[in-house]
């Protein structure tokens, strides 16, 4: 288990090697990145096995503060500053550890991240085949996954923040990977800037906690929360500030606008970064800091409300979007919202369970969309139809992902979504469960729409000569599909030592699978109705949608324009941000530069201009000045000596 640090380090090591020698290596260095993450995936199993056999007596392990789950910490001092030997509580000394923590949450994230990254990197061999900059692509990928793994392993907020910014950087680099076209450039900048707004909150929150606790260490912070050292106000404010960072990264309303645009990046990037791992970092952060969040009712309610707004709003947009990748992007936003909602409803297990199940299914869907795009060069679903004729493998695998995410029973998405419904029903007012069920219905509906419009129904003749995905792509999708099908079974109390995910990832106390009959039944019925309706409407065309379109015209228009949020942002930037910037620029130019910097210079020059005329060049002027000076001095002496 001590070797967990090796998982990110291997991928970190691959980065400079690929950049320096990639051009001369076989496959332009791509095998290096894949080998690094493959080794990381292997070490993950060693760590997992080590963790399962560990007990609170094991070296470095203890029952974690806050979560009450087994937590193992390994750390070395990164740097210290201040008065040697002083107490860190008084801020006379600061000590930052380069450390990692291995607990159930970390193990789960490690497994998801290494597996999806491995699949996506192998998939990319096919998808990015022939790209001239494939060495950079794999270097960025290796850097991303190394940062992501550091993020989930970090045992203190400062290290987490460093990794947090690094994944943001990699996201920027990979969204803008095809920077020859203007759209990816703009999208990359948008993603970077929008998430940065949240990151400022995160940084301020971390510093606020440090100022109160005297340490960046998470366990010490949570111990301070539990022991009541922190006031309620500090807990609420710092939790909300951390949540601001999580909102940016996890694309929560109103910071979700960057994620749909991020689809300009290569599709495997969308699958890895913008579906399964990086965008889940916000959810991970809230889960990691759950002892802090759960201590503040206000923070929990904010998390739940933002989550619900995001989930419902994004689901409605996904229903009317016409770009296949953007449908999936809005679906991702919606599901991230559901995870946040679940966390806000104290559904800790449910949120992480859904994070994992959604990660597998959504990565599969993105890779499926990538396969379609790879073959057809088309992303507008209105141009597609009946593609299962020419791409049967992709069609089947995509359908599995869609059914899983839509919540069809037995598949992974059903179990995790149901856990969320149970948590919401138990903890939050009735309006929340109603809207969550509506979101679940919409979620099934848009997944069904994407699946039926693209792969079923009337065949779009102009795709006659399209070929199916190459092996590297179909095999990786197949492996992800296996997880999208069977992963839900970890919720069950299977024979053997594993008693279900509820006893592995839990907060305070483990619990088995909770099934509320009417909720499970209702969500199943909703999902099946949605799929059947979508089949009839989009594949068989036996339901005419024009009538609905007429009735809900205005609502459709609002949703199709993404609730005009991009326009609101544009207006804010143009009117508020730019006006303010212009004012600041004026202050800089007029006050700082003209008065502060040039002012003394101008005064000196003008004074010199005026005063130079007393220097006549005639000797007698100087003689007179000397004589007068002498007289002056004499008078001065006389006055002084009197």
């Amino acid at each position: 288990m001590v070797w967990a640090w090796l998982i990110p380090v291997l991928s970190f090591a691959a980065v400079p090697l690929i950049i320096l020698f990639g051009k001369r290596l076989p496959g332009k260095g791509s095998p290096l990145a894949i080998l690094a993450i493959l080794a990381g995936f292997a070490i993950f199993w060693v760590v997992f096995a080590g963790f399962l056999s560990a007990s609170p007596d094991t070296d470095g392990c203890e029952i974690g503060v806050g979560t009450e789950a087994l937590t193992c910490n390994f750390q070395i001092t990164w740097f210290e500053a201040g008065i040697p030997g002083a107490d860190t509580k008084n801020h006379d000394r600061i000590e930052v550890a380069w450390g990692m923590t291995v607990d159930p949450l970390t193990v789960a994230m490690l497994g998801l991240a290494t597996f999806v990254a491995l699949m996506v990197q192998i998939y990319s061999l096919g998808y990015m085949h022939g790209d001239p900059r494939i060495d950079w692509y794999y270097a960025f990928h290796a850097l991303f996954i190394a940062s992501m793994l550091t993020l989930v392993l970090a045992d203190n907020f400062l290290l987490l923040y460093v990794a947090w910014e690094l994944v943001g950087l990699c996201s920027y680099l990979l969204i803008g990977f095809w920077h020859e076209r203007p759209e990816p450039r703009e999208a990359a900048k948008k993603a970077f800037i929008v998430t940065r707004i949240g990151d400022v909150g995160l940084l301020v929150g971390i510093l606020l906690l440090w100022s109160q606790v005297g340490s960046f260490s998470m366990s010490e912070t949570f111990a301070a929360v539990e022991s009541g050292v922190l006031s309620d106000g500090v807990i609420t404010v710092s939790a909300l500030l951390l949540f601001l960072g999580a909102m940016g990264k996890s694309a929560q309303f109103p910071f979700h606008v960057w994620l749909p645009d991020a689809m300009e990046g290569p599709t495997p990037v969308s699958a890895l970064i913008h579906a399964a791992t990086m965008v889940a970092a916000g959810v991970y952060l809230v889960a990691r800091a759950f002892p802090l969040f759960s201590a503040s009712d206000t923070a929990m309610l904010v998390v739940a409300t933002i989550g619900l707004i995001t989930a419902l709003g994004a689901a409605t947009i996904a229903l009317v979007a016409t770009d296949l990748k953007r449908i999936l992007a809005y679906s991702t936003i919606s599901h991230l919202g559901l995870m946040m909602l679940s966390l806000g409803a104290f559904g800790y297990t449910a949120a992480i369970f859904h994070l994992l199940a959604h990660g597998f299914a959504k990565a599969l869907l993105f890779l499926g969309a990538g396969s379609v795009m790879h073959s057809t060069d088309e992303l507008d679903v209105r141009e597609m139809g009946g593609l299962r004729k020419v791409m049967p493998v992709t069609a089947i695998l995509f359908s599995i992902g869609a059914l899983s995410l839509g919540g069809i029973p037995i598949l992974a998405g059903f179990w995790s979504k149901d856990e969320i419904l149970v948590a919401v029903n138990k903890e939050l007012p009735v309006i929340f469960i109603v809207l969550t069920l509506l979101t679940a219905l919409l979620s099934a509906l848009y997944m069904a729409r994407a699946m039926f419009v693209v792969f079923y129904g009337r065949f779009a003749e102009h795709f006659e000569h399209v070929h199916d995905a190459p092996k590297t792509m179909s095999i990786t999708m197949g492996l992800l599909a296996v997880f999208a099908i069977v992963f839900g079974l970890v919720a069950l109390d299977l024979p053997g030592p594993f008693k279900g995910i509820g006893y592995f990832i839990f907060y305070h106390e483990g619990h088995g699978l909770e099934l509320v009959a009417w909720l499970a039944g209702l969500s199943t019925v909703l999902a099946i109705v949605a799929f059947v309706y979508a089949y009839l409407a989009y594949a068989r065309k036996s339901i005419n949608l024009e009538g609905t379109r007429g009735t809900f015209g205005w609502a459709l228009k609002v949703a199709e324009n993404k609730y005009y949020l991009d326009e609101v942002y544009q207006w804010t930037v143009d009117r508020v941000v730019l006006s303010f910037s212009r004012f600041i620029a004026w202050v800089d130019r007029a006050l700082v530069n003209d008065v502060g910097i040039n002012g003394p210079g101008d005064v000196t020059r003008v004074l010199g201009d005026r005063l130079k005329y007393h220097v006549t060049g005639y000797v007698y002027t100087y003689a007179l000045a000397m004589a007068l000076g002498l007289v002056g001095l004499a008078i001065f002496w006389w006055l002084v000596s009197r």
Partner: protein
Amino acid sequence: MVPLVAFQVLSAALFAIGLYGVMARRSAVLIVMSIELMLNAVNINLIAAASHLDGMGKWANFDGQIIAIFIITVAAAEVGLGMAIILRMYRNRSTVNVDEINLMKW
């Protein structure tokens, strides 16, 4: 014995005449001569003061006289230097009129 104040009046008069000469004359040679006048005014002042204050007896103080001799030496050197400069000036500009030599400005 001539009172000290008479020497001081003479010295001051000579100094004033010299100062006037430095400022009013146009010829560089006359300016140098006026400077000599001022230096000699100082000499008179020094010697008079020295001999008047404690010039009597065995332990007379010769400070004033010594400084005066120094001044005479320096004045001689100064005249030599000054005349050399004026000579160069005349060679260059064919004049020793300081009104026409006002290069020492901005």
